């Protein structure tokens, strides 16, 4: 499967409070509303800029550090972001993203710049930066996460298999 879109670039250590602030996330389960405020404290215009289905969040190290709240990956997904690509992810965020069906890719994002057009080949574990004419390797997910993502998230996976099935 291939994913394509434009890169929106963020720094290292983007934490879950920056992804979606506590000002919003505690009072609602309405992800459409949360999606309007996603990344607001880093880039106030982000939610207006992203084109659903054709945007990537591209970040540095330790993306998603902080709380365990799933509102963070859910709000990103709801905003229409195709995948988050980062140098590395914080543990809980990484798992949560897969569990809610948001694709997360770990690779060397150093050379990617804001606005670059990217094509991701999930089978070959490669990102192609069309503007830089460069290919970046992505670290493969553990098999169980691949399966969860393939079902669109843990809820669907759990329903289908009736529990955890290790490959």
């Amino acid at each position, binding site marked *: 499967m291939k994913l394509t879109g434009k890169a929106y670039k963020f720094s290292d*250590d983007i*934490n879950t*409070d*920056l992804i979606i*602030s*506590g*000002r919003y*996330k*505690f*009072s*609602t*389960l309405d992800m459409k509303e949360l999606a309007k405020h996603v990344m607001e*404290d880093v880039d106030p215009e982000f939610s207006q800029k992203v084109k659903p289905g054709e945007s990537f969040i591209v970040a540095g*190290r*330790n993306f998603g*550090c*902080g*709380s*365990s*709240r*799933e*509102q963070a*990956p*859910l709000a990103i997904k709801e905003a229409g972001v195709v995948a988050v690509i980062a140098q*590395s992810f*914080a*543990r*809980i965020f990484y*798992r*949560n993203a897969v*569990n*809610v069906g948001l694709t997360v890719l770990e690779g060397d994002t150093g050379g990617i710049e804001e606005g670059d057009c990217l094509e991701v080949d999930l089978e070959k574990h490669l990102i192609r930066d069309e503007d830089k004419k460069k290919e970046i390797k992505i670290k493969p997910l*553990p*098999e*169980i996460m691949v399966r969860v993502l393939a079902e669109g*998230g*843990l*809820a*669907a996976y*759990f*329903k289908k298999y009736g*529990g*955890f099935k*290790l490959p």
Partner: protein
Amino acid sequence: MRKTIAEKILSKHAGKEVRAGEIVVAEVDFVLAQDGTAPLAIQAFQEMEGRKVFDKDKVTFIIDHNSPSPNQRVSSLHKTMREFSREMGFPIYDVGEGICHQVIMEGRHALPGQLVVGADSHTCTYGALNCFSTGVGSTDLAASLISGKLWFKVPGTMKFILKGKLPAGVYSKDMILYLIGERGAEGANYKAIEFTGELINELSVESRFTITNMVVEMGAKVGIMNVDDKTREWIKEHSNLSALSLYPVEADEGAVYEEVLEYDFSSLEPQVAKPHRVDNVSPVGEVAGKKIDQAFLGTCTNGRLEDLRVAAGILKGREVHPEVRFIVAPASKEVFLKAMREGIITVLIESGAAVINPGCGACVGTHAGVPANGEVVLSTANRNFKGRMGNAKASIYLASPATVAASAIEGKITDPRKYDRGQSTEDR
């Protein structure tokens, strides 16, 4: 096969011998969620077509993050939690009971050798009781509510050997801030940390909680300590069961560690984490004199009895600076009651503190102490991210209860050693 504590606990709960790096499905001993995560977990539970929880004695919800509710929308989420727990037949800790991590440990829901998952990132705190406990998201939590199981990647372990004797006025909060500053926010990502060494044995169990609480700020999955007499005492003191059997787990001689690090804290100074990163740490001297608008004593990191006691020791007979709001939130009802009986609460209120009910209070920025634009807060919490306390235009510094109390008096960040001659390490 020689194993680390993490490998041993996960092997036992997976029913087979496992090593770091393997992926296992393991049975969990306890499952919890708080009001920031439970509503989504209930939603995922329903999506997964869950009908009942795997064992109603091994599940709880805690209403602590927005407690009591600040608005009607939060109230309706709380109502959903209460209705769900009633329907499923498990008890909850409602408004006023305290912060999830404190009530879980006081309620002996996390014991040595056990495996606990919580939908809160600071679930790692119970590692000080030799429990493998870690934070998960709401969907993982829903899966374990239904099945009593969860998949885990067995983490590699780093070993921290902590030595020396803490100088007066320096506390376990300073130790963990120093370590985070040294290792960085990602310094233990995905790892388990085993804390050993003579200094750990010297520390009170409450001081140990402060350390394991903050391992997630280095990215760790869990921070684990061994059980000693102090641990047994602490558990007994909080347990209704007189003859509780404990199953502590120790690492094998020759277990494989990814890294072994030694630190001597004999000349450690009080530490402060500066905005907006927990690993942006320096000795208090470098930031001393910075004017503060609000001081906050509380949270699952430093809202326990000994923390309130240290602060009261410094504030007794003194007054909070007129331009500082000093907010105190005891970590639990039990802590609150004990602090009242000891006269600590009176001392704090007389000095000018605003004492609020047990819970997360100002820590997450939904109510009870949101700072104004441009204001500076000095807090005993574990996170100082931009916007953390509800205003991205405020700055948060983190420090020990002693540093916060001393600074509340002076209205600026202050080295607590000026006021705090220290007690014996035994009392810490």
